[in-house]
């Protein structure tokens, strides 16, 4: 009897501490983001000091209005272009491959799976990759930031795992009805895998949107720069380093560009997060 009470008291203390720790962790994530958001809506005169931190006391859309009519929009368009085209290519490469790998009788399946998983643990680094892209004459072309990064092993494996769970009997009966593998994929498997394909589409979109070093490595022409590159210049380099604006950029404008840089991710995020958990059961990598 006494031990039970004792333990439940210890348990109570633990629960309180646990909640405090988790709350602190949550705050450590919310506060930096919140600070960016409120600053992006603040007026110039309010952000000159260093006390505009947590409580917003001005609201204006002028910062966003300013960026909408500036060079940043060109970078935004480049990012969007790369992300949309890239995502399409990625899906066209990954979905058929994922399906084929999900078929247990595929010729050379074991070899292909080894080939894919090996890339997860062996990374040759940037230079050999750069040499390959350069010798394909892709430098300074938008294709250089799309094609060489078009596939992600994790995403292929997520698709493969999901499609493996589709009952064999469905596929067999379609085959008996005279469907070939192409027909099975288009008519049976894809309609049953819409949710996972949607999730992978969004992962790919985010990965293209967020790319930075491939862009500065492969693209020299600043008109082709994506938003991440421009944002990095704005936040980390001298204020007038960008397109010779020459004037001091207030932090509220900077934060508005930053919001632009994370906007698609913030919009898409609620839709991907639940799939990611179900999609990436890590055991599936092992095969």
């Amino acid at each position: 009897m006494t031990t039970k009470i004792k333990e439940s008291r210890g348990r109570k203390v633990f629960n309180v501490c646990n909640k405090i720790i988790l709350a602190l962790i949550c705050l450590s994530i919310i506060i930096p983001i919140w600070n960016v958001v409120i600053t992006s809506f603040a007026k110039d005169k309010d952000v000159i000091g260093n006390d505009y931190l947590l409580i917003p006391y001005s609201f204006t859309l002028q910062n966003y209005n300013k960026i909408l009519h500036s060079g940043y929009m060109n970078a935004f368009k480049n990012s969007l272009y790369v992300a949309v085209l890239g995502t399409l290519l990625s899906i066209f490469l990954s979905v058929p491959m994922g399906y084929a790998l999900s078929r247990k009788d595929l010729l050379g399946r074991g070899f292909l799976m080894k080939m894919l998983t090996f890339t997860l643990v062996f990374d040759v680094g940037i230079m050999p990759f750069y040499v390959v892209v350069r010798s394909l004459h892709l430098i300074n072309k938008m294709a250089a930031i799309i094609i060489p990064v078009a596939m992600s092993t994790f995403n292929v494996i997520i698709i493969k795992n999901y499609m493996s769970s589709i009952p064999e009997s469905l596929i067999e009966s379609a085959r008996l009805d005279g469907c070939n593998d192409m027909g099975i994929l288009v008519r049976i498997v894809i309609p049953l895998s819409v949710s996972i394909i949607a999730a992978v589409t969004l992962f790919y979109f985010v990965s293209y949107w967020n790319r930075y070093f491939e862009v500065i490595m492969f693209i020299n022409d600043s008109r082709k720069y994506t938003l991440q590159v421009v944002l990095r210049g704005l936040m980390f380099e001298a204020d007038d380093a960008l397109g010779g604006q020459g004037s001091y950029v207030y932090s509220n404008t900077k934060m508005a560009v930053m919001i632009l840089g994370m906007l698609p991710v913030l919009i898409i995020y609620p839709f991907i997060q639940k799939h990611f958990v179900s999609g990436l059961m890590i055991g599936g990598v092992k095969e």
Partner: protein
Amino acid sequence: MRQKELSGAIRQPLGVRIKRQKFLLLMVIPGFVWYCIFKYLPMLGLGLAFTDYGFKAKVSFIGFDNFKRLLTSSIFWNAFRNTLVISLANIVFYFPVPLIVALLINELQSFKAKKAIQFLIYIPYFFSWVVVGSIFVNLLSPTSGPINYLIQLLGGEPIYFMASTKYFRSVIVVSYIWRQMGYGAVIYIAALTTIEPQLYEAATIDGAGRWGQLWNITLPSMRPTIVTMLLLNLAHVLMIFEQILVMYNSAVYDVADVLQTYVYREGVLSGDMGYSIAAGMFTSIISLVLVLTTNKLSAKFLEEPIL
């Protein structure tokens, strides 16, 4: 190979099987070609480390000259040391965090609270390194950042963290944890949900307390996930690049320049490609050895090879 022989009770000739699977094989080909060009061709490209590829039109084999140059370069050794220090700090300080956070979240009673926290801590993982770096620049700014505001409030002098050789590595590790913590935690939580509740019931009947359950059931059940995460971590930790490239500046080269950023400056910016491939090879090969060793150890002592 073994698998094929086992399944081939009534095996058809290869030609027939290829013909029967022609559409399936067609689906694999584009992806297969992509992997050959962009993942495996670069591996062959490592051979260029033994050439003077880069400046001259004609590439010639120069044996170990690049490696000799490396070993005498103080910038290389500085980058090498920084890579090891930052990677070690990442493994020691980052690796346990997602597991601990996952266990803490799992102790919450409310299902809604669990979901909400997972939702929240996973957000930073979807931000680019540029955005994460920018958030930290903003947070740590000596003129308008909250952290320095606090320091001044407590009577201290503002610190320029991003340009301080004393603090920069900590900024790297903390921002790494900030961005990646949720990703790891979500995977561990998924693994936690697959543990059979009966195991805990049985343990309770046997008189195991909370700690006993943690050591005897929870952690052993999660071992495959933990080992897999460790392997993936080891494979990439030494290749740290984009985060540093985004966040460093010439004021902190001494403590922040890692091998991949050194390789980037020598190879891409200066065009000395053979040499920089040689420099990059160090970390690639050390990483591979680390991963294969861990896998061997895991196979031997835990009876579960992950790869």
